[in-house]
């Protein structure tokens, strides 16, 4: 059974600082997603990572994937308050398999 772990679960950081959220998964995967969720809202898709070494960046967020280590990271650069949200990674075991297994989420709070 595929297991996905994120850490930290809670993260409070000051504006302007950098930090990284980690996502570990237990079995081989072809696809890894990162999502953002604001309180009471749905999931907003941030990145899709498909191959080893994949790196994608948008604004202050950058995601990477190491399939050999079964690890993805979401790096936040010079954090701003608007980035406060819960971030989830989700893993699909192989192409064509639609069942995403989500991590527990990282609740990020940016302090002015």
């Amino acid at each position, binding site marked *: 059974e595929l297991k996905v772990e994120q850490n930290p679960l809670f993260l409070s950081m000051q504006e302007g600082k950098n930090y990284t959220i980690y996502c570990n998964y237990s079995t081989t995967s072809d696809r890894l997603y990162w999502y953002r969720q604001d309180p009471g*809202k749905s999931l907003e*898709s941030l990145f899709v990572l498909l191959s080893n070494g994949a790196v994608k960046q948008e604004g202050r967020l950058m995601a990477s994937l190491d399939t050999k280590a079964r690890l993805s990271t979401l790096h936040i650069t010079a954090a701003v308050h608007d980035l406060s949200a819960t971030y989830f990674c*989700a893993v699909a075991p192989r192409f064509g398999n*639609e*069942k*995403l*297994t989500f991590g*527990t989420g990282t609740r990020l709070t940016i302090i002015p």
Partner: protein
Amino acid sequence: DAGVTQSPTHLIKTRGQQVTLRCSPKSGHDTVSWYQQALGQGPQFIFQYYEEEERQRGNFPDRFSGHQFPNYSSELNVNALLLGDSALYLCASRVLGRDDEKLFFGSGTQLSVL
């Protein structure tokens, strides 16, 4: 483009009742998946529909059933509701086989079982 739309947005039921939730996928999408998200947790996969058939199923009891219509819209039915079924139910859609594309989620239906 309306994106993925779900209805209703909120629903209150009592134990033992039955509920039907509805989802219209994003335009051009043919695959619909349903997820259950309990408070403070990540979403859990319920099942996925493609070409009007259930293609994959997560670890949910038979009380959870679904349907997909020819226009790709979908329904999630839950029978004999339990208190533990209270959650946000999310519908997601994409085009089957386009693995490099994002999976789009609807805004969800918040179900409360009293």
